[in-house]
């Protein structure tokens, strides 16, 4: 997904002089071409994430369309007040693109993990959140975001589904609704084999657009970030699966952490079957 992001953003910068990119060392090598070709609007501010967000706000106030990028915990967690004030309070927009997700960097430890990023943005108004499940979903989301001035967060991950799907795709039909967000789709499909459920895919959890007919049904939401982030979006009997809030002080791979949080197919099947 990171490669798709770099290629698409580099192309957008070539095509649209209104766009700008601000990075804070992360992915500096990947964006070497863009930095060389557009020194007037592609900036590496060094390891300064608060500044990166402030610069994004300032660029937007002059009429530009800034893209900001870093590891999720540095882009969102660290610069939360800048996101709140330098973008939201100024009524300015930007496209924030993160990598790392909840535990892509499992072996790097908790400092490099951001299970709470979407929940943090939920404390603020006006954010569209995209969680693509496959690299081929990334270019379209970025190109759409470049064309307006709103606040957009794109959460990229190393974990992805075997293929791309359109937002809102229904993969199977049955009684209970299971909403799979982004890269949770493949594990959800495997976990619900033979179960009487509808599986609905979304790569755009904010704004929550699951229609109200479905919303009032019994529902399971499976999200690749903090469990319960979307709990307030559902009305009826519901189960919210995601990453636990307690820190897991182990390393390994994202697969190990997914298993520990019950987000692997076996863990999901256990939780969903019990709920049904």
């Amino acid at each position: 997904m990171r490669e798709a992001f770099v290629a698409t953003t580099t192309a957008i910068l070539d095509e649209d002089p209104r766009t700008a990119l601000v990075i804070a060392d992360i992915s500096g090598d990947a964006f070497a071409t863009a930095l060389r070709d557009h020194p007037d609007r592609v900036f590496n501010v060094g390891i300064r994430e608060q500044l990166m967000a402030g610069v994004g706000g300032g660029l937007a106030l002059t009429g530009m369309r800034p893209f900001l990028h870093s590891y999720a915990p540095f882009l969102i967690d660290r610069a939360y007040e800048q996101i709140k004030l330098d973008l939201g309070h100024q009524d300015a927009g930007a496209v924030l693109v993160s990598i790392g997700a909840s535990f892509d960097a499992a072996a790097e430890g908790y400092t490099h993990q951001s299970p709470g990023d979407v929940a943090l943005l939920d404390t603020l108004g006006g954010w569209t959140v995209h969680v693509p499940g496959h690299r081929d979903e990334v270019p379209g989301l970025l190109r759409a975001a470049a064309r307006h001035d709103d606040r957009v967060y794109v959460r990229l991950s190393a974990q992805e589904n075997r293929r791309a799907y359109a937002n809102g795709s229904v993969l199977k039909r049955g009684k209970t609704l299971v909403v799979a967000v982004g890269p949770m789709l493949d594990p959800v499909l495997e976990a619900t084999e033979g179960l009487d459920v509808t599986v609905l895919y979304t790569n755009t959890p904010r704004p929550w657009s699951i229609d109200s007919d479905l919303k009032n049904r019994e529902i399971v939401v499976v999200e690749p970030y903090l469990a319960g982030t979307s709990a307030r979006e559902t009305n009826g009997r519901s189960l919210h699966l995601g990453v636990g809030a307690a820190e897991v002080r182990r390393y390994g791979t994202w697969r190990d952490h997914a298993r520990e949080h019950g987000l692997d197919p076996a863990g999901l099947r256990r939780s969903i079957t019990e709920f049904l």
Partner: protein
Amino acid sequence: MTATSAPTNPLHTLLSRITGDAKHAPSAHSTLDVLWVLYDRVLRISPETVDEPDRDRFLLSKGHGPAAYYAVLAAKGFIPEQWLDDLGSWDSPLGHHPDRVLIPGVEVGTGSLGHGLGLAVGTALGLSAQGFDRTRTFVLVGDAELDEGSNHEAIAYAAAVQLPLTVIVIDNQSSTHGWAGGIHTRFPGWSFDGVDGRDHDAIETALRKHEKTPHVVIATVGQK
């Protein structure tokens, strides 16, 4: 001749409207003289050009205690004088910290300290990218505000890329631990002027220097 205090008319009257206090002299407002010089002599901005893309930008980072700012905006016709009478009320666009969305001529909403410099860096970069080479960017911070680490991210980066940006530090010696060695030493790679924060001619001269590179003007006023 060197003026050593803000004109009592109209600013004194306007300030009294805000504070409801006719006793305190304008000198109680640390930013007043710098703000007046900016809007009266330096900035290429008027009520008619608040939305022009190439207008000069002034960002008040030190957004608390905005009475002097509001008085200057009213004196220059950006906002009606009547707005000054009910500051902070439900029906007033003027809060105890300014909101750019509510007030014509206000470039950024501030209040939480340490945000204006980063926004100003982005503003200066955006103006340069669009070819507005005549447009200047100014940002005003307080000496205590510099305690916030976010300022130093912006200060270092602006120096590294030699950004066309002028920072005014109002120094009323309010930083709890002070700045050993002088505030200007916290701006390595910047050109520096120190002025009496009440001396209009000196302020103007300093603000007109070094338009194309990072420049810091430290305006010293009496301790509050």
